[in-house]
């Protein structure tokens, strides 16, 4: 599948409202849950799973990028959300840099191959310096989505 298709205008938060890590993560999961009409119980379970995962080891992958993720048995497909925090979140990243770019990934428990292919897709984009700097300057959601087209792998 094309992972680019997981993102449309609704799947980008241009500016996260909450500036602490846990609250920002909750905001992202709730945003995604609202778009896809997840039951409240599932949203709570996902928030908990995301926070648990962070407690085991922060998903800040360096250079201001984080990849919070969790799996849930009720999910039938991968859900994703791209978000920005201009101010920077203290994410306990390996390189100690504040996080500005977040890719939230919610995956089903089946199909681990698809999950790691998606991580590959994200890291392909996120490791490009120009993607990171242009994303921080994006003026609207359309521009942000355009960057996924521009910097995403040609084939997937």
């Amino acid at each position, binding site marked *: 599948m094309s992972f680019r298709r997981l993102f449309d205008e609704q799947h980008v938060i241009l500016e996260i409202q909450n500036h602490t890590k846990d609250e920002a993560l909750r905001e992202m999961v709730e945003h995604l849950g609202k778009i896809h009409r997840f039951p409240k119980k599932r949203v709570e379970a996902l928030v908990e799973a995301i926070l648990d995962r962070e407690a*085991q080891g922060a998903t800040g*992958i*360096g250079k201001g990028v984080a990849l919070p993720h969790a799996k849930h048995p009720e999910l039938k497909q991968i859900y994703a959300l791209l978000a920005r925090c201009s101010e920077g979140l203290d994410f306990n990243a390996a390189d100690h840099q504040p996080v500005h770019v977040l890719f939230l990934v919610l995956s089903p428990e089946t199909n*681990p191959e698809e999950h*790691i292919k998606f*991580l590959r897709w994200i890291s392909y984009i996120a490791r490009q310096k120009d993607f990171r700097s242009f994303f921080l300057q994006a003026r609207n959601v359309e521009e942000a989505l355009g960057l996924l087209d521009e910097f995403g792998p040609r084939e997937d």
Partner: protein
Amino acid sequence: MDPGPGKEEEVVEADLVLVNRQGLHARPSQMVVKTANDFASKIEISRDDQVVDAKSIMGVMMLAAEKGTVLKVRAQGPDAREAVQALKELFASGFGEEI
């Protein structure tokens, strides 16, 4: 201590096999990077013609290796042998996950 001529440039290569069910997802990738960073040697991991720096999390995640994949590691430097050994053990352990 001077490691002596030759030791500095020692190159060690080996295969790394993904044995855990979930493959090289984020947590194992972080473990690989953490292990690689314990060593001074330059360490590269490759899959087919894609070569990444084992000390970069974004690089390692680019490999997207699923269970059964065979990766190649190449270390060069004063502790190349120890680095490759540590990575082989880490992969063989399945990162502490379900095999």
